[in-house]
């Protein structure tokens, strides 16, 4: 399986969090399906040229969140996600990203209408509506 994780050193995000963020994203968008197998710690560490302990830490965090589980003798798999963050915590994490988005849009002279339009078009690309209703 190809996870397509890319790591950048010298970032303000530690490497283990770059991995957890990207796996979470892949699961949330369906690029990684439930019951799909992830590479072993060793294999991913080798592919990304990282200390295996870093990958192990990322996997441990994801397992604690209930996003993946290790099945003894078989490997690491994606499991059905339960909501981990409270609404409030989710909001706290999302808001800085929205701030950055609005700031960039203002700097580039987007009108509010153009920004909303672009945003909605992107949500359609991601099939956000269908994804959201499939969860109910």
């Amino acid at each position, binding site marked *: 399986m190809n996870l397509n994780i890319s*790591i950048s*050193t*010298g970032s*303000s995000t*530690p*490497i283990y969090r770059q991995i957890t963020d990207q796996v979470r994203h892949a699961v949330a968008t369906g690029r990684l399906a439930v019951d799909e197998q992830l590479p072993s710690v060793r294999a991913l560490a080798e592919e990304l040229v990282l*200390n295996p302990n870093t990958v192990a830490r990322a996997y441990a965090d994801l397992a604690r969140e209930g996003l993946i589980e290790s099945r003894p003798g078989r490997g690491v798999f994606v499991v059905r996600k339960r909501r981990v963050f409270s609404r409030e915590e989710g909001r706290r994490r999302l808001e800085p990203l929205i701030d950055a988005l609005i700031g960039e849009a203002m700097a580039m002279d987007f009108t509010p209408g153009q920004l909303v339009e672009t945003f909605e078009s992107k949500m359609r690309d991601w099939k956000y509506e269908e994804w959201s209703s499939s969860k109910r």
Partner: protein
Amino acid sequence: MKSEYVIRTHGLTRYFGANRAVYELDLKVPRGGIFAFLGRNGSGKSTVIRMLLGLLEATRGGGEILDCDISALGPEMRARIGYLTEEHQVYGWMSVRECEEFQSKFYPKWNENIFRGVVQHFGLKAEAKVKNLSRGERAGLCLGLTLAPDPELLILDDPALGLDPVARRSLVESMIQLTRRSDRTIFFSTHQLDDMERVADYVAVLDQGVLRACCPLDLFRDSVRQVQLRFSSNPPALPEIPGLIQAVRTDTAIRIVCVNYDEKVNEVLQSLKPDEMEISEIRLEDALISYLGRHGEKSFVLSETAQP
């Protein structure tokens, strides 16, 4: 029984004349994993390494390496420690194969598979003459010679010095492979923070001969936070802040970097009544520069080499 640390020093101190090169060093390197030793040029890293290997006498203090007193290392002990010096010392007139034959005579437990694996990884041919090797190839040869006796502890003094990106990547890969066995430890000094970030489990920071941090890399990162305080007019004077390592003032803002940011620090900063206050994570490089830069407060030491 084997101790959980492969290197321990106690108040290790070295003067060169009146110059203090290393001062009261209490270094603990846990068994297993990769330990990065950071610091500016001339901060005393090589002096520490040479004392650890018994190549240089301490003025005061001492230490143990693989549970053996560093002032009494015999040949048997030295065979269990691999040491790669800053300048790679090999004879120009020898071929790669001859280097191996020559070096292997000194070691009863020479593993030629390790040697071949490493030199192939660096793209070296057995017949190539040492004098014709590039810097990266020469580094690969020396690394192979150092790894082939299968040492328990590998000490690398700035192994990435002068290497191109491809050779550096080979070096990093070799380091990761070597520590597949959980009882193998690498202790290395470097200025290559990108490589360090990929491989290191632990980090120690030496500043003008004084140990400023010695802990797991994740802890080092998690402990350092940057806070930006914005004011509508000139910022007030900073009160005492525990763990402060850097403070930079501008006309309407103060940016501070501090270790172990907590509720108490938060209260102190809030009491300055800034218009805006933003706490953010910091890049490893910036954290290190805050530790070592001119603005640094020298009061804070982060030390905790617990097992992960």
